[in-house]
């Protein structure tokens, strides 16, 4: 039954991809193929990064309403980015090779994420309210620090930063695509090998240790993976608050299982299906460029409120 659902999702995604590539195609095919192809690739990559990061985060923190972005992960990435522009200056920043910059940002991001989040991550199970609070505080802190830095830097530097701070599925940063694919694939490979262990981790710290899983070490690994995935997606399309939540909730709802071997591919497929078909509809049919992110965030946000009110914490 699970396999059947996965196949249906894959077929739908394939159709969405074909629609995205072919609808309203005018002019030279070789140009279109490259142009739309890179965009499609970026959408798929972002889908994978966000869905996997959210699923992992929920598994390790033992709840189903918190996501990396609600906890301030992408705000942290933006802060790191701003800090780099601030310390290096806009000129040096722009002159730097995009990929080196990206790697440096991810490096700082990992360090900061481990320092800040490793203490609170595992506690979610016992104390969800504290986690929510920590997330809100971190998020606000990172955002206001970013805002503060952006206000005191040079206006030119500010313009450089601005491009990064809105979710834009329509204009992805193509330079980082290759490196992003590399990083996300590496993360996915590690995660796929951990898929059974993740099932055990979802039972909670005590049960996991009892069953012989080195819980502390693995939650560190997962934290690093989540931070990397969030960095990639934020670098490509900017922060997205509720998309991950929407995707994992749908995956749980459709698959109704605890097994990561199913939840992982399911949430990847669902995320990609929403992004690709949504982008096709908005860009090709409705001709409005940037409304997809707004729509996705709107429904994700509604879902978040719904889950909160219904007390579906777990």
């Amino acid at each position, binding site marked *: 039954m699970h396999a059947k659902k996965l196949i249906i999702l894959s077929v739908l995604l394939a159709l969405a991809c074909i629609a995205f590539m072919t609808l309203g195609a005018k002019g030279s095919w070789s140009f279109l193929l490259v142009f739309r192809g890179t965009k499609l690739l970026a959408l798929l990559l972002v889908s994978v990064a966000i869905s996997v990061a959210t699923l992992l985060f929920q598994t390790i923190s033992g709840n189903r309403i918190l996501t990396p972005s609600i906890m301030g992960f992408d705000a942290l990435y933006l802060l790191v980015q701003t800090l780099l522009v601030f310390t290096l200056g806009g000129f040096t920043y722009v002159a730097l090779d995009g990929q080196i910059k990206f790697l440096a940002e991810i490096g700082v991001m990992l360090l900061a994420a481990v320092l800040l989040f490793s203490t609170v991550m595992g506690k979610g199970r016992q104390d969800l309210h504290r986690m929510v609070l920590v997330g809100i505080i971190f998020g606000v802190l990172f955002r206001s620090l970013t805002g503060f830095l952006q206000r005191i830097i040079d206006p030119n530097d500010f313009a450089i930063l601005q491009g990064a701070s809105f979710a834009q599925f329509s204009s992805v940063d193509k330079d980082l695509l290759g490196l992003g694919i590399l990083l996300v694939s590496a993360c996915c490979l590690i995660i796929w090998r951990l898929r059974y262990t993740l099932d*055990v981790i979802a039972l909670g710290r005590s049960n996991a*240790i009892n069953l012989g899983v080195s819980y502390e070490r693995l939650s560190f690994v997962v934290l690093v993976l989540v931070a990397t995935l969030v960095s990639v997606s934020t670098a490509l399309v900017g922060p997205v608050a509720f998309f991950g939540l929407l995707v994992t909730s749908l995956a749980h709802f459709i698959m109704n299982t605890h097994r990561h071997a199913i939840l992982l591919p399911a949430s990847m497929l669902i995320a990609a299906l929403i992004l690709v078909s949504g982008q096709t509809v908005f860009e090709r049919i409705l001709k409005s460029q940037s409304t997809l992110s707004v729509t996705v965030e709107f429904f994700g946000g509604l879902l978040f409120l719904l889950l909160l009110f219904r007390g579906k914490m777990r």
Partner: protein
Amino acid sequence: MIEINGVSHNYGKSKILQNISLSIKESGITALIGPNGAGKSTLLSLMARLQPLQTGSIMFDGHSVSQTPTRELAKTLAILRQDNALSSRMSLRDLVGFGRYPHHKGRPTAKDHRAVEEALDYFDLQDMSGRFIDEVSGGQKQRALVAMAFCQETKYLLLDEPLNNLDMYYARSLMKRLREIADTGKRSFVIVLHDINYAGAYANEIIALKDGTLAIHGPPQDVLETNALQTLYSMKITVTQHQDQLVALHHL
């Protein structure tokens, strides 16, 4: 053999366990009793490495719990905790199946499937094995958790109040089964019990904790004794005899 040596434990400034030293024999049932807050669950969780040891050492057959890899220990000892909040959505069969994880690491063999079916039969769960854990009663979930710990097939099994939520029928049949298995000499059980009569009837030895210290450690006849029980629980308890079994009348 389980050897506990000079174990003390603090939460902040409050002393929860103070210099506990004892050894538990290779096979049989050891009951751990004591008032609420005596430190029974804390001791059990330290034995099962769920918390790091602050002072002292705990060894299972000469393997220290703080030094032996978790993965190895999972084949030697299993614990059933007092409170179990499970957030995953899974069937009772899946839950029980997790007990086999230390052996198959996610790829169950025929042997693992057989062990799960046996445990389901053993604890009378077969007809509800497809139900989700959040859709069964407290006692049914408790039986599934016991079955899961059982499935792990470890030499040592630490059970923290396994009779929680069980009705008289299942409480007695669980204790009888533990007794049967203990009598084969292959596995040993450390069981936290509040009903002193169960401890008296089924355990080889009783360990009593009070205020974080070892109060009594001995055979049931040492513990099921009016004075001993009255000091331990600070209440009036009469002990009588029914056939050849000592019975504490703690409910009157």
